[in-house]
């Protein structure tokens, strides 16, 4: 595929991610911080997010599986996950975390388990889409092109 086509696909793909609420303005802010001296900044931060999230989701699964559920600890984990998803612009993950925290406040185990499922689902979706986006970027760079910036959301 030639560069122009790849770039158009990229722009369509990322525009859809914004439109469907997977990403918000914070992701654009990350892109603004990337330059020649830090060409992989976005990928690096998002990779940290993936590692951090998977660890937190594991901890949450374990914590909800305990005999005596520690809601304070669970709330702390969700707060962390909400923070990191907000920092990279993963809007739907962040929103799922907000809902989760409300369930923690109510100390409702069943509701918390449902919330956890929801967060896991949103996380996996976000991960899949971001990985696809990064692959598109790699293809553009490999074909000798520059990664276009979507202006409207910055």
């Amino acid at each position: 595929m030639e560069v122009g086509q790849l770039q158009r696909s990229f722009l369509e793909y990322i525009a859809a991610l914004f439109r469907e609420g997977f990403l918000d303005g914070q992701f654009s802010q990350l892109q603004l911080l990337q330059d020649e001296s830090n060409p992989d900044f976005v990928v690096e931060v998002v990779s940290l997010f993936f590692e951090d999230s998977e660890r937190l989701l594991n901890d949450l699964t374990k914590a909800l599986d305990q005999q005596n559920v520690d809601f304070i600890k669970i709330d702390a984990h969700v707060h962390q996950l909400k923070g990191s998803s907000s920092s990279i612009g993963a809007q739907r993950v962040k929103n799922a975390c907000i809902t989760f925290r409300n369930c923690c406040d109510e100390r409702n185990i069943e509701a918390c388990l449902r919330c956890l499922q929801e967060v896991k689902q949103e996380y996996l979706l976000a991960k899949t889409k971001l990985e696809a986006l990064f692959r598109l970027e790699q293809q553009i760079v490999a074909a000798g092109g520059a990664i276009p910036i979507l202006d409207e959301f910055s």
Partner: protein
Amino acid sequence: MGMAAAASESRFHVLAVDDSLIDRKLIERLLKTSSYQVTTVDSGCKALEFLGWSEEERSNPTETSVSPNIHQELGVNLVITDYCMPGMTGYDLLKKMKSSYLRNIPVVIMSSEHVPSRINRCLEEGAEEFFLKPVRLSDVNKLKPHLMRTKFKNIMGNQEREESKEEETGIRTQKQQNVGLNKSNAMRKSSDHEGLSLDGLRQKYSGFTVITLLLSLVFSLCFLIFG
């Protein structure tokens, strides 16, 4: 070696405190993009360690005109800290700094939660700004005036620092009247407008302070050379 020379040649050094690795990476990038020298730590305790906090210094708080100067030479010009951290919160760190020889280092608080009472508490305790996370470049741009103000103060000796403290109290009183509105980016739109008038006021004070301090410096130097 002249402190004035050292201060003007080096970049501003910001110490960023956050327990989240992702947020540390972000704030570091934001600050470096704005040409600041950056050190990041993951806790309030490590921040105090880095700032040279020790039992010894705690028992001789303002014994010296020397001790604070040394810390300025180590070069932390501003501390930006997350509010919610395990152990020592950003607020605890702020309080410790403001009640110690570190009081002249401007402190900025960041938080992912918009809680007006929290914002007011921090500003009343002496925080210069309160940023809602995720922090943006436009927020980091607000740091410059605080850094410039402190830079001029730190060129002087103790006598001048006393004078400038009075100025600062004047500014802080003004600030307290506007607390919660101007200094947080929680209301980005309205704060831009009100922030402008506060900045105007601050510039007026800065101009006056600069002239006073420069004159004092000249006199001190004359005294040192010829006295």
